[in-house]
């Protein structure tokens, strides 16, 4: 999980490590949007999309640490790939299987209102160009890719 995947030079990775507490999600958003803003190839709207996706991933990471009683920090790693900005959110929670998440009932179904939760991962999938979950019983890593020419998944 400490491997940056497509990160190229480790020296070029920006890392932010935050205590697994709700108040620090705003800091992750701030760092990622500052980095995205300095990448002139990303339009403002796409920066907002990435910021929201990162926020959702950090929220899940923090909730996973909370559920696992982990005192460890959550790691946010960012790097500029050739044609994309990539962000990886890594936690030490107990993992999950993204393929097993329930589908939401259609919006016309009155049962839709039962779903106050479970909107984060659908949002992430819709907002970024590529998302990859790697999860084991010891933690989860969510890699978000925002391509320069892209426009969402």
């Amino acid at each position, binding site marked *: 999980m400490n491997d940056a995947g497509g990160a190229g030079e480790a020296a070029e990775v920006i890392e932010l490590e935050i205590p697994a507490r709700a108040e620090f999600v705003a800091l992750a958003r701030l760092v990622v949007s500052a980095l995205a803003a300095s990448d002139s190839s990303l339009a403002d709207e796409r920066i907002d999309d990435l910021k929201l996706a990162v926020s959702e991933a950090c929220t899940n990471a923090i909730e996973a640490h909370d559920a696992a009683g982990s005192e460890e920090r959550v790691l946010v790693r960012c790097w500029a790939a050739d044609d994309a900005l990539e962000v990886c959110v890594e936690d030490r929670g107990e993992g999950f299987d993204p393929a097993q998440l329930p589908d939401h009932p259609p919006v016309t179904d009155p049962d839709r209102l039962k779903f106050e939760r479970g909107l984060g991962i659908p949002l992430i999938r*819709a907002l970024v160009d590529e998302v990859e979950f790697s999860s084991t019983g010891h933690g989860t890593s969510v890699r978000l890719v925002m391509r320069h020419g892209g426009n969402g998944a």
Partner: protein
Amino acid sequence: MDLGLEVEERDGFAVLSVRGEVDVYTAPRFRERLIELVTEGKHRIIVDLEGVDFLDSTGLGVLVGGLKRLRSHDGDLLLVCTQTRILKVFEITGLTKVFSIYDSVDAAVAGGSGGETSP
């Protein structure tokens, strides 16, 4: 991080204006305020999101929870929002079909009194 939560009465509606960032850190305060209003007997609530800079799925959850709670009291929760990036979050999650979203508090008051008119 500051979350602004102001309540005003308008023609039988409680208008809750939210300012700032609604995320996992600030959402609990937002949820509590909504529940307080319902407990006080305010069953017709307009949530004005025009001052919101950021809203994530936790914020959506608070709104869905509020709507559910109000409907169970035969009340309603209307939204005011014209910001593209906030509306986008409702669109992606299909919640534009669940909420009545208005361009202004005035429009919400008129629409909400005159029946369910989602623009």
